[in-house]
């Protein structure tokens, strides 16, 4: 078994042992190109590591809870987080440590190093992907290096790697990772060159930045871009960035900084260097037989090639979401920018649009104007749903970014310990629930008030005013295309029910937050405190937005419903055929064509198992999303009415918990959701109230019926149905 090999020893047949990046680098080295001094920790070291720590069984368990194709990206995030946590806590086998030590002593003792992934098969033309696995620069000394190696191995199982490879098929047993250990070549200028321009195969594209090219690869630094004709090297376009910045190594961290004023107006590459890069990328194409995507740097005026891989030819087809998966991972800097945009531009703009629409008097519109208004509101809603997917969902990565940092520095046994720190932030849904709890306690304590409410009254003037204030503030809560608190009578009905429950305590203990906060900052080196604080703030913003964004979106949906409701009531007044519940399209069609006969919405057919058989769930597996065990009768939530039937102590079972429906959560004994993940609303709100929670249970709302006696195991992610 050879754990470490030099580039001289690598042949083209060693793909599985050293990975695609090492094979390419060895070929460049053999062809006489300058490459950084490099050795490769082979996949045999990875094998030894995962075998010794039984990590394959862990991966199987994490990825095998349900069919991988059925896992949502949020569930994959969670599985990846748990796998990474296990990788980081496992010991590196002694022979591997010894081999690394020997290499450090004899190879490059005092140099700063780069530790890069080299996964077998990753650099073929169909599967080439930049930045999919982790690399670390500025590594010095054995402890830092072993840590970096462990993280590179773990990066084989990151969410983005899993999501990406899902499309290609994942084999846990044959997946392995080699690691390149290189001298860090810190040239003043570096970049990437594409032998075939992504948009025009007749051009070569060159991108260059000052400093390390990692900033260019991860998107945190905008480069200068050139397009050159493949045949003549003539420059057809040069696009300068808005601002020239550079990434520099500081210890094992990297930092973005502005370039000195003297360089700010000068492109990083001069004409002759541009041609040199152009010629190198064309030469690599001759060497490998296909256009290459080459990372390079200039060191002491010499061009050094850092890596080469085929330009990916796979074009994004319909349904290919791989680019979006990759966009889910963003750097701290880009997430901070995104957060500012969301908090200061997008959410206020969304609220302004809602307020503007809400001020229109629907009753004053004629039929044609109403149709126009319905469609306008629908378009606005659709537009914001798109923004939600493009900007709000990726911002949720702030939670993961903080979680990963926390786990790296603190190394807790529970990989979700960090959530307690994030939860110390006020959520709109929790504020609403507190207000409900306050009103309910008034009802509970005042028997006269309770009596009045029970017979249809609204209490005294003060209580009535409080009800009005609540309806005004939270009346826009919608669920399943229905308003929940649209009128006072519904609020009263719910308050009476809530008043029957003795006390509803929130869980998050402030003491825990404080001690975790101390533990976290004590584990972070002083010079990284600013970054740690930024990450924590970002994590909290992301956590808050994760819950709040749906409430903002629901305001818009409520406005669409209002307009559709107005259309509905006009149709009812105008004659027969409009009694049944119609959807938006049907209302619009019926308003436009008064003689049209509208069909009621088709009922969803239940698929029978097979004649003579009745399927009953006994034990359903999902993801553990809130620790604890609870038993209770099931309450399956499909419509807003189901929410108002909720009894204290029942288990909330639903397709997808929406912050707009979580007002019943304080009464629940546990939460089960079909949608999976730790970052979904069900898990967030269950954690807020300290309830056991299992998410990602396939078909849960059709398998479980109201009243089924359930045991919810939030530690293991298992729901047991005890009926006989």
């Amino acid at each position, binding site marked *: 078994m050879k754990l470490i090999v030099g580039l001289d020893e690598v042949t083209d047949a060693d793909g599985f042992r050293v990975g695609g990046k090492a094979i390419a680098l060895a070929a460049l080295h053999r062809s006489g190109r300058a490459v950084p001094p490099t050795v490769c920790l082979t996949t045999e070291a990875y094998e030894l590591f995962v075998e010794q720590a039984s990590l*394959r069984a862990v991966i*199987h368990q994490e990825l*095998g809870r*349900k069919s991988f194709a059925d896992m949502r990206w949020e569930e994959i995030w969670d599985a990846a987080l748990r796998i990474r946590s296990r990788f980081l806590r496992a010991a590196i086998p002694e022979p591997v440590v010894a081999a690394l030590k020997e290499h450090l002593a004899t190879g490059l003792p005092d140099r700063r190093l780069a530790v890069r992934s080299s996964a077998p098969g990753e650099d073929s033309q169909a599967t080439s992907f930049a930045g999919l696995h982790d690399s670390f620069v500025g590594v010095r000394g054995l402890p830092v290096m072993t840590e970096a190696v462990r993280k590179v191995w773990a990066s084989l199982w990151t969410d983005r790697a899993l999501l990406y490879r899902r499309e290609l098929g994942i084999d846990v047993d044959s997946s392995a990772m080699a690691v390149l250990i290189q001298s860090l070549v810190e040239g003043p200028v570096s970049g990437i060159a594409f032998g075939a321009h992504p948009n025009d195969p007749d051009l070569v594209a060159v991108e260059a930045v000052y400093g390390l090219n990692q900033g260019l690869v991860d998107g945190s630094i905008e480069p200068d871009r050139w397009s050159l004709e493949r045949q003549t090297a003539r420059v057809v376009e040069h696009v300068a960035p808005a601002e020239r910045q550079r990434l520099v190594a500081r210890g094992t961290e990297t930092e973005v900084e502005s370039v000195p004023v003297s360089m700010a107006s000068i492109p990083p590459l001069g004409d002759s260097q541009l041609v040199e890069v152009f010629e190198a990328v064309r030469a690599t194409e001759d060497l490998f037989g296909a256009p290459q995507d080459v990372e390079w740097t200039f060191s002491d005026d010499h061009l050094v090639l850092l890596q080469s891989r085929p330009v990916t030819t796979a074009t994004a087809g319909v349904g290919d979401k791989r680019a979006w998966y990759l966009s889910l991972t963003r750097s701290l800097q880009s997430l901070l920018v995104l957060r500012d945009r969301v908090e200061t531009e997008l959410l206020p703009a969304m609220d302004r649009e809602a307020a503007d629409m809400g001020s229109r008097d629907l009753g004053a519109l004629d039929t044609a104007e109403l149709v126009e208004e319905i469609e306008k509101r629908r378009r606005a809603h659709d537009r914001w749903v798109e923004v939600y997917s493009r900007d709000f969902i990726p911002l949720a990565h702030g939670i993961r970014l903080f979680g990963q940092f926390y786990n790296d520095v603190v190394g807790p046994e529970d990989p979700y310990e960090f959530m307690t720190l994030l939860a110390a932030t006020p959520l709109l849904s929790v504020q609403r629930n507190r207000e409900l709890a306050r009103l309910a306690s008034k009802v509970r304590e005042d028997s006269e008030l309770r009596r009045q409410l029970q017979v249809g009254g609204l209490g005294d003037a003060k209580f009535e005013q409080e009800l009005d204030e609540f309806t005004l503030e939270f009346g826009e809560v919608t669920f399943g295309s229905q308003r929940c608190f649209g009128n006072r009578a519904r609020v009263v009905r719910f308050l009476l029910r809530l008043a029957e429950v003795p006390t509803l305590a929130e869980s998050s203990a402030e003491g825990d937050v404080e001690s975790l906060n101390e533990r976290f900052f004590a584990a972070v080196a002083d010079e990284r405190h600013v970054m740690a604080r930024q990450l924590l703030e970002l994590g909290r913003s992301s956590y808050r937005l994760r819950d709040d964004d749906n409430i903002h979106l629901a305001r818009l949906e409520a406005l669409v419903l209002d307009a559709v409701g107005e259309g509905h009531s006009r149709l009812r007044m105008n004659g027969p055929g409009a009694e049944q519940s119609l959807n938006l399209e049907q209302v619009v069609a019926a308003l436009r064509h008064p003689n049209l006969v509208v069909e009621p919405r088709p009922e969803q057919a239940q698929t029978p198992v097979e004649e*003579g*058989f009745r*399927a009953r*769930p006994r*034990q359903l*597996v999902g993801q553990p999303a809130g620790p604890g065990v609870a038993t209770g009768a099931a309450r399956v939530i499909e419509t807003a009415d189901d929410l108002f039937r909720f009894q204290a102590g029942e288990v909330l079972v639903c397709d997808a918990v929406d912050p707009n429906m979580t007002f019943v959560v304080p009464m629940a004994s546990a939460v089960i959701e079909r949608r999976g993940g730790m970052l979904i609303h069900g898990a967030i709100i269950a954690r807020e109230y300290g309830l056991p929670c299992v998410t990602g249970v396939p078909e849960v709302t059709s398998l479980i019926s109201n009243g089924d006696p359930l045991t919810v195991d939030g530690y293991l992610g298992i729901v047991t149905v005890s009926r006989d």
Partner: protein
Amino acid sequence: MEILRDLLESQLLGVLGTQHDGEPYTSLVGFVATPDLKQLLFATGRSTRKLANLVTDSRASMLVDNRTNRRSDFTEASAATAVGVVEQVGGEERAEFERLFLGKHPHLESFVRSPSCVSLRLRVSVYMVATHFQHVIELHIDP
């Protein structure tokens, strides 16, 4: 249902569970499922302990699974436990029993036709199908 059918068709052997005076006992048996999956057919020698157990208590279970003795089995293997009552197959039903059983286990012809062998069927009342380690669905059969 698909998983159950696949299991019952692909596997040659199942683990039969019986008991006597509360003492549990398991045995590996070759089996075949009837096309409607409501019966599992198997055969045993007259002097076996499982038959003695079944004579005193006809309630039995049979586990059929597709494990391969690898770590991935914990999440990838499927298992079905059939629970029901065992009866002897005789008379006119013997021919159909032999057709089905020997269709799957042709090498057991002399065993099945031996006078010392008894043909049996487990009339299944419920299957418990486990996938992904702990995901369990019960399939109850209408009586």
